């Protein structure tokens, strides 16, 4: 068990009568990447704003490296590197001057700043455009400069709002590598993204928010379990003629009414079940005993998009029924 760098406890935020965040509790350990997802208006940005000192919670606490984000907001700012979804550019400013300004704002001594700027540009893969004007950079280049700015004061935690937004596929792959590399260097990262496969690949833990509430939190596998206790099993057969017999055996062993689908062309049988491992092993044993040509008997992994849609779909149906009723 590592040390929790970011700790959020019962965090709530109200704007008038609108509840933007409802008793959010989670923690992120050192060197971990937390993927923060949810539909628009779920409360992700509100949480981030509270962490970086741009908003005050109505209730609850948030700490970074043990420092309270509300009462010691000034100290926390030195511990956090924040990359918002907008770049925040200045006209007539070159990349090196831009970083120099933020370095001076964080009171990094002049000599050290020169070294740090070169270092972070190198890490972000932006060394080649340090003399270019900020307003003339492409979107991908800006994202790199934004990451360099975020790293400049060597924060313990990085909070990135949509870092892969608008990037082309090669740039996205590089961004993924960069995030993993930063986590390997001991940085704690909180990343939001609408490109869910991106998050699934790099995040150690995922938090799914909807309507200000934490709907699921944990590793990808844990989330799949939380959101859906039933899992999808797949039986692959060597011979197509065995499909009908396999369907019959599976249906007999499952709870009545369980939907079993079969594909003769794929020579596959699929079903959703909440049965435990032991009971599943009995089904496999019976299939083998009956002479079915089983080549694979496996669980189909729930991906992040499916998990997200379970939450988002639930939310939209709730919203529809609320609107109708």
């Amino acid at each position, binding site marked *: 068990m590592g040390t929790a760098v970011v700790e959020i406890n019962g965090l709530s935020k109200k704007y008038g009568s609108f509840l933007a965040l409802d008793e959010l509790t989670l923690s992120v350990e050192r060197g971990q990447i937390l993927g923060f997802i949810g539909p628009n208006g779920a409360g992700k940005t509100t949480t981030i704003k509270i962490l970086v000192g741009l908003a005050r919670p109505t209730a609850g606490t948030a700490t970074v490296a043990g420092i309270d984000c509300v009462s010691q907001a000034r100290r926390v*700012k030195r511990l956090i590197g924040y990359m918002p979804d907008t770049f925040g550019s200045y006209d*007539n400013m070159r990349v090196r001057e831009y970083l120099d300004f933020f370095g001076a704002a964080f009171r990094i001594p002049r000599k050290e700043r020169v070294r740090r700027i070169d270092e972070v540009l190198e890490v972000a893969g932006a060394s080649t455009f340090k*003399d270019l004007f900020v307003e003339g950079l492409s979107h991908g280049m800006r994202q790199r400069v934004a990451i360099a700015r975020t790293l400049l004061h060597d924060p313990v935690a990085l909070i990135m709002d949509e870092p892969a937004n608008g990037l082309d596929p090669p740039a996205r792959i590089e961004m993924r590598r960069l995030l993993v590399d930063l986590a390997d260097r001991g940085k704690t990262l909180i990343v939001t993204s609408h490109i869910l496969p991106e998050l699934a690949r790099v995040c150690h833990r995922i938090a799914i928010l909807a309507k200000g509430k934490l709907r699921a939190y944990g590793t990808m596998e844990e989330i799949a379990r939380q959101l859906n206790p039933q899992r999808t099993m797949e039986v692959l057969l060597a011979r197509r003629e065995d499909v009908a017999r396999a369907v019959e055996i599976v249906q007999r062993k499952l709870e009545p009414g369980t939907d079993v689908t079969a594909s003769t062309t794929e020579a596959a049988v699929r079903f959703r079940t909440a049965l435990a491992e032991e009971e599943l092993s009995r089904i496999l044993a019976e299939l083998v005993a009956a002479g079915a040509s089983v080549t694979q008997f496996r669980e189909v992994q729930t991906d992040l998009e499916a998990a997200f849609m379970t939450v988002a779909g639930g939310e939209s149906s709730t919203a529809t029924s609320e609107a109708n009723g």
Partner: protein
Amino acid sequence: MNPIVRRELVELLRTRGALAAQIALAAACILLVLVRWPTGGVSDLNGARSMQVLRVFGYGLLAGILFLVPAYPASAIVRERVRGTLALLLNSPMSATSIYLGKLGGILGFAALLLTMTLPAAGACYALGGVPVSGGIGLLYAILGLAVLQLATLGLLVSSRADSVDTSLRLTYSLVLAVAVLPLVPYALFEGKAGGLGELVSWIRCLSPIPAVLEVIGQSGRGAHGMDAGTDVIGRYAILALGTSWVCAMATIARLSSAPLDRSRPAGVMTDDLSIGTRAARRMFFLVDPNRRSRNISLIVNPVMAKEFRTRRFGRSHWTLRLIALSALLSLALSCIAAAGALEWGHEEIAGGLVILQTILLLLFAPSLSAGLISSEREGGSWQLLRTTPLSAGTILRGKLASAIFPLLLLLCATMPGYLVMIAIDPQLSPQAQRVAVCLVVMALFAVLVGAAASSLFRSTASATVAAYLVLVGICVAPLLAWLGRDAPFGRGTVESVLSISPLAAALHASQTRGFAEYELLPVNWWVMGAMCLGLIVLLVVRTRRLYRPE
């Protein structure tokens, strides 16, 4: 009907600013007529009252047109470019000419609406008797219509070439001031000269709408030292206004037709990487080369101030230095010419000229420096980033204000040599020069604070710039309208009260300029300005803290 005309008009009329402009103009005109409306059953048979009202009415309308109208054409095309809708328009089957005429039509329509709002007051002025419709009020409106066309085409030309709305606004207002005032300077210097030179300066003078309006309201002798040019000022202005409008329109249509969005990104060439010869040449030309590799910001310097000096489009070091050098040269030249006896001006006229030169520079320069201090950060999304740094709201505000105040003080210092020459010639003028200097410093501080306060109140720099210009013109220049109507329709007491809020009038009074010396404006004006500056500082601090603090 051109679809852009309708869209432009509807978009304009939906803004609160447009509504405020209409109401303000109408209210001011009505108030003016009410002041001189006959009371106690006494009727003015010779029409003197009516002419008095028409005079101030004419000045007011011209000032309204000069300061309200340019804001709309200045932002019309560049705003489309910034929003990305210009590409959509150019991609439509509409020709560049149709787009241009649509934009121009919308602005002219809005200006017509503004002028219509003043018609009831004009009608009342006519009802007072003594002012004919065809040669008086009707002609005044015709000239104002021409002025609107001239300013609108000029604004659209600037707008088609500018990169940002605030740049376009600054440049347009500077050009409007140049068109209205500069053509009068050669005439003032060479009035009465016969031959080609006299004819030329007489024609140049008619580029400005001011002489034409003065002619209509029966004030053509004002500023001419008793010498009426005796020329057809109105006819010449009509020819020149239509001519310049046509040239501006053609240039703008040509710009719209030649792929205005086809621009490359800046390459980012550093002077340090160029040859020694090029580096030396650039050093000579720029003094402070904007493309040199700058030093890292020192920790003893406010980083926000250093950043402001490096980034803002207007007011970067090399331009500021050039402006300061030019001001110093102008100021010295004016004093030296007068001292050498080339002009038969007394020290009052020279001091008055210097005050007006400094005021124009301050009024043009100050809002450009300060009206984007906070709004530009909010527009660009960098305000949020500043809030996540350990910089406090106070540090940010101090850095920003210092970045605007220092160049202005330098600018004032640059125009001071003129006073030093005057003091050297006549040491008794020293206390007078000191009072003028205090008035100008107060005006500079006030101008910066107005711009900064507007930038904290408005989200867009363009709106903040327009608001700052309007407030400054309203406080510094508009009270002079009452001075123009001194003795009639306004009495001495009224004029003195109104002038006491204007720092320009106070500076002219301090310099003993003819027409201002007899009013007692100091130290009342310092108290008024001090109170307004204090109020603006409080507003600025409260707004900055509110914008900085967590939501």
